[in-house]
Structure formats: C-alpha cells, structure tokens
C-alpha cells in the first residue's frame, strides 16, 4: 500500500506540469489574448487607446510587452526557437527581415499589394516589407537617421557645423564650467548604435562606408580617420564624459538630459523619449545638423523604409492582427505617432496637426532636405540579401576600436581600423562563396552600382539603367 502511495505521489509530481499546462491552455482558448511586443518606449501609452478600441470591437485582450531595444532581438530569437513568438512584434535587427521571411518566422498580411494606394505601393520593397509578392508588413515611419546633434541651448553658444567648430565649442563649455559639464556623451556600450552613427557620419563626410561605384568597403577612409582623430583628441583632453565607456543609450540620454554634457548624438526619438519618459519639463534642447569635416554640403543615406510590425507565423490571430496593423496607416494614428515624437510618421502631413517640440520639427526638416535612398541590393537581386545574412561577425568593430582607445586597451586605432576593413572584406568574400555553394545566385557585383552618384537618391529609374 505504502509503495503504491509513493509511486502515485511520484507520478503526480511528474505529470502535474503537463496537466497544468494542458488545462490552462484549454481554459484560455476561449479568450486567449493577442500578444504584442514592441521596443518603442514612447508608443506604449499611445497604443493603450488602440488596444482599448480593438478590444471593444473584437472582444480580444492584448497582452502587451515593452522590450528594451537592446534586448528585443534576444527575446525574439529565444521565442522563435521555442515556438512562442508573439502574435505581433517589432524587430530591431536591420537587414535581417529577408532572412526572417525566408525562414518563415512571419506570416503575410491578409491583404495583397493591390490593397494599398499607389503612394504606399511605391514604398513596398522586396526583402523589407514584401517577399515573393506577398506583403508582410507596412512602413509606418519616414526616413530618418541617428546622427542628429542634440544640444542644450543654455550651454551651447556657437552651434557647430564643422569638426573644428564642434571641438572648439566642447572645449569652451568644459573650460567655462570648470570641468563640470562635458562637451559630449557617447553610449559606447551600445556598439551597434555607435557603428550606425559612424556610418551616417561618413555619409555626411561624403564617403559612405561602402563605395557604391566599386563595391569596396571603406571603413578606414581618410574621412573615418579624421572623425577618429577628432574623437580621440576630445577624449584625451577630457571633453567626452569618462563614464561614456560603459554607457548604454538610456544612461547616456539621462545624463545628457540632466545637463552633464552639452551634446548627444541620437535619433529623432530622443525628443519623445526624453520628454515622455523621464523629463517632461525639459525644454532646453535643440538639434543641429550632423557635423561634417569642413562644413560641406551633404546627404545621408538610408535604405527604403522597412516594415515595423510583423505577424508571427504561428499566430492564430492573423486576420485581427492584419486589421490592427493596417489601422496604423490611418491619418489619426499617424498624427498620434507624430505626437509622441518618436520615429517620424510615414505621412509627414500628419506633422501639421501634431503638437510637437520645435526640435522634432527641425529634425524632420533635416531629414526631408538631407536624406536620400541608398542602393538596395535586394531590389536588383533578392538572393544578394543572403550575403549579409550569412556573413560572420567581424570584431572589433569601429565602435569597439574607439572604446578600446578610450579604455586604454589600444593605442594604434588606425591600424585596427585598417584591419577591420580588410577582415570585413574577407568575411564578405567568404559569405559570397558560401551563398554560392548553397545555391544562391550572388557575386561581388551585387555590391557594385556604377551609376550611383553621391548627393542623389538611388531611385527605381537607376536600377533600370543598370
């Protein structure tokens, strides 16, 4: 009898979780919430209204999760492999969307390309929002970059245009404040962001990190060396906040908003995050154009607008999720996007109806004047997107090299930059070979766009001229 009792207890312990899981699943089937993950801090309040309306209309609760941008990718990888992707989610990896479509992470929207107006159809690109003719997501934001120079007008007297202006202004601020206010704060621990910033700053310096005419990487161009010279000089003279070495974006932004440094290089969302999340009273900030070596006329390039919200392949709410996402293109929601002052809305007319800080308007103005579309590999050859997706990571990257200099780990950053460029080139060559062996039709020529001209957008007509 005793034996039986013990065996029963053991079995109960072992099978309890199975029954627990099973019962909760069957119980929740009736009203299973729609899971929604995003990394836009400022959107959480705004989306509450949307979710309330959605629940009233569909009777479905939304289980909302706000993830930190630097943790979102990890969370998605883990949930994908455990078959627990949320019904709707945002992504933070750039260039990975095509891989996501190919590996069937996501399911297409329940509408075809014809559903959209001509304006929007023109902005749907293979590998970014569509894949093999099906629409997987829609662009909700207009073009933007993260090399905007935010500053506090009470600290900055002379708005910088060139590298020298910037250095002199930072030096003046540091000196006049007796070392209590630094010139610049950098989120060096957020390495991907810093590398992105470098990329945009090289565009502004008229030397994009890929020479689109030849396809060669130029992360070690004289212009990059010049930017590094500026930053290392500023570090040596104590003009960059010392804690920058370990700062992530959130810490850097908070310390900048607290007035500990005059300049912060960030994206347009800085306005919304600062005002909505931790310092609503802060009005002492403005934005200026990305600094260039000698104040040249410039253009900053980005890829065509990517998709923002995606529907998981295993979602049982594909129809409802499609409706929810499509609703975001509506005028009312676009005005709301502008109002939270995060990413600029896809429909820039919405800005006229929005109540936003002047620096937000200034940033959008800079984007419309200064931004162009760069050549996009996937538009000429969809297979070419596999090259980057299969490329091994090369490290130390430029941001890590700079951090190495800041932390005293390496002195010769110039050699390290040359090595990075060489290794990156080798990694791309390897990836091309690997892709070819996997059956993809790719070659080095996928990176060559002979008719690219700096200062001009790479439009659809240019592809047809190739």
């Amino acid at each position: 009898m005793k034996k039986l009792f013990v065996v029963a207890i053991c079995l109960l312990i072992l099978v309890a979780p199975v029954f627990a899981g099973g019962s909760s699943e069957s119980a929740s089937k009736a009203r299973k919430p729609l899971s929604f993950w995003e990394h836009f801090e400022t959107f959480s309040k705004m989306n509450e209204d949307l979710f309330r309306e959605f629940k009233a209309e569909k009777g479905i609760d939304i289980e909302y999760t706000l993830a930190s941008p630097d943790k979102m990718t990890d969370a998605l990888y883990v949930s994908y492999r455990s078959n627990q992707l949320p019904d709707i989610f945002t992504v933070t990896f750039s260039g990975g969307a095509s891989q996501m479509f190919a590996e069937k992470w996501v399911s297409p929207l329940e509408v075809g390309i014809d559903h959209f107006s001509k304006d929007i159809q023109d902005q749907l690109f293979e590998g970014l929002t569509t894949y093999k003719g099906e629409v997987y997501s829609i662009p909700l934001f207009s073009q933007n970059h993260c090399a905007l120079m935010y500053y506090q007008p009470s600290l900055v007297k002379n708005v910088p245009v060139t590298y020298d202006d910037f250095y002199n202004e930072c030096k003046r601020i540091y000196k006049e404040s007796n070392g209590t206010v630094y010139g610049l704060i950098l989120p060096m621990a957020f390495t991907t962001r810093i590398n992105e910033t470098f990329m945009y700053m090289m565009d502004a310096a008229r030397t994009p990190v890929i020479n689109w005419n030849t396809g060669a990487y130029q992360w070690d161009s004289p212009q990059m060396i010049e930017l590094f010279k500026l930053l290392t000089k500023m570090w040596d003279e104590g003009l960059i906040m010392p804690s920058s070495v370990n700062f992530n974006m959130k810490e850097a932004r908070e310390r900048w908003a607290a007035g500990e440094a005059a300049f912060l290089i960030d994206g347009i969302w800085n306005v919304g995050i600062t005002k909505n999340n931790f310092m609503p009273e802060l009005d002492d900030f403005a934005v200026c154009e990305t600094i260039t070596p000698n104040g040249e006329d410039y253009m900053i390039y980005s890829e065509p607008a990517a998709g923002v919200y995606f529907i998981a392949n295993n979602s049982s709410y594909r129809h409802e999720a499609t409706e929810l996402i499509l609703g975001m293109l509506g005028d009312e929601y676009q005005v709301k996007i502008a109002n939270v002052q995060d990413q600029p809305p896809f429909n820039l007319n919405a800005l006229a109806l929005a109540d936003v800080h002047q620096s937000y308007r200034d940033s959008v103005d800079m984007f419309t004047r200064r931004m162009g579309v760069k050549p996009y590999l996937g538009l000429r050859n969809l297979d070419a997107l596999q090259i980057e997706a299969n490329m091994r990571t090369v490290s130390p990257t430029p941001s890590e090299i700079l951090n190495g200099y800041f932390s005293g780990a390496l002195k010769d950053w110039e050699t390290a930059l040359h090595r990075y460029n060489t290794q990156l080139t080798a990694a791309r060559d390897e990836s091309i070979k690997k892709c070819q062996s996997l059956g993809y039709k790719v070659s080095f020529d996928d990176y060559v766009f002979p008719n690219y001209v700096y200062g001009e957008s790479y439009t659809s007509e240019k592809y047809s001229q190739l």
Partner: protein
Amino acid sequence: MNLNKTIKKQNTFWIVAFLLPNTILYAMYTVYPAIATAWYSLLDWTAFQRSGFFYGLNNYIELIHDDLFHASMKATFKFMLIAVPLRFLMSLFLALLLTWRRCIGKTFFRTLLFLPVVTTGAIIGTIMKMIFDPKFGPINIVLNNMGLLPAGFGLLSNFSTSLGTSATIWSWKWMGMSLIYWIASLQSIPTELYEAATVDGASPLQAFRMITAPLLKPFAGVILILTVGDSLRVFDLMLTLTNGGPYFATEAIELFIYHTAFADRVPRLGYASAAATVFASIFVVITLVQNFLKNIQRGYRNI
C-alpha cells in the same frame, strides 16, 4: 535469508523511488541540454534558422583562431585568479573575527555580510555601476580626495582595472556565502582543544597555526572547489556591470557565449555551442584535477 532478501528489495525500491524524480529532472534539464549543446556545436546554425546544417568540426577550428574567444578565456581565468583567493581569504579572516569570543554584534555583521548574497546579481551590477561612476560615484570621490586616483578615472571603464574591480565586486557579493561555510567549519572544532592550548600557554596565533589551520584543511578544500565553481558563473553581474567591456576586458566566457548566440549581428548558435562545449570540458578538467589533488591529500592523511 529470505528476510534479508526482502529488506534488500524494499531498500532498493525506496532508493529508486526517491532518486527517480531527481534523476528525470536532472536528465531533462542538465544531461539533455549538455548533449544537445555538444551536437549543436557541430552545426552551422544562425539564430534566424529553425535548424542548422552539419558543419563537422569547423566551429572548433574557427574557435582556435578566434582572438575574441582567446581573450574571453583569458578574462575568465584572470577573473578566477583574482576573485577566488580574495573571496577565500577575506571570508576566512571575517569568519575568524566573527567567531572570536570578544567580537560584538556578531549577528548584525553576519546578516550585513550575507545581504549581498541574497540580492540579485543584476541589481548589484546596476548599483555598482553608479557607485563606481568616475565623476559622481562615492568610491571615486573618496579616492580622488585622498589623491589615490586621478579625476575622471573610471575603475570600471579602464581596461587595466575593470577586471580587478569586477572581481572585487563579485567577491564582496559572494563573501557572505563563504563566510557561512567557514563559520560552520570553525564551529565544528571542539572548544576543549583551545582550552587545553590556553592552559599550555599558547598564544592566539599559535592556537590558529597548530589547531585551527590543520583542522580547517579538509573544509578549505571543499570551500575552494565551491568558490572556483562559483567564479565561473558571473553572467548576471557582468552583463549589467560592464557587459564584457571595456574592449572585451571583462568578457568572461559566459558573456562570449551569450553575445555569440544572441547579440551578434548574425547570431550563431552552433559556434556559441562549440565555445560552451570547450568551456565545459575545461571546467570538467579543473574539477577532475581538484578531486585528484584532494585524493592525494587524503592519501597522505591516511599514511
């Protein structure tokens, strides 16, 4: 004879009954992941893909030539060399102090020293980042005022000091755990021995050398093994404290595996698994060597 057989059979049943749940859970959550990791290490598998392709030993070959992997192994062992003696000796010293008859406020200090143990590593990491802030951190302010540290020098943001500082923080966090071990060991020494030593006129130092130290030796071996094992599990603290920086100075192997598997531009599960397998193998070797040395020590004692 029959009775013996019945008792033996019954005992076997109880042993199996009690071991079974643990064995099943151990197999599910330790053995299976270990075998799976070893298998994954033979695959070329990016995080975007549902499954990987067989890649042979290429991940291991790549690891041999990976400078970052070497740096992370170096950081892990350097961390161990700094943190283990620090935690081991400091906790012994504090345990001696807290078991000393004349020591006052024993319970208070024991509780105080144990508090960091029950605090999450991630919280400690976040708080310590503020405490060691180069400009506003209290540690820096004190050291600056004493002239021991130049202004603006970040102990956690300098390549040469970040690992030592992290190891010190880790030792402080886990000090309470070793302290408990030592106190329990010290309390197991019969007080008569000290009384006899006092009667014989032995000084406290002599009593420590002739009574405490020899009797603590077997415990010291166990505490050392536990501390070495602990020093390889630093993920939560290091992730929030330095995230492996500056310039990979504190990128312990656990962080290397995490970054490779999740945070890289193209995360690689196969490659991260290969690193994990190499690391686990090294850990097994260390444990075997420790056990071997312990057995030798036991052998000497038995002579």
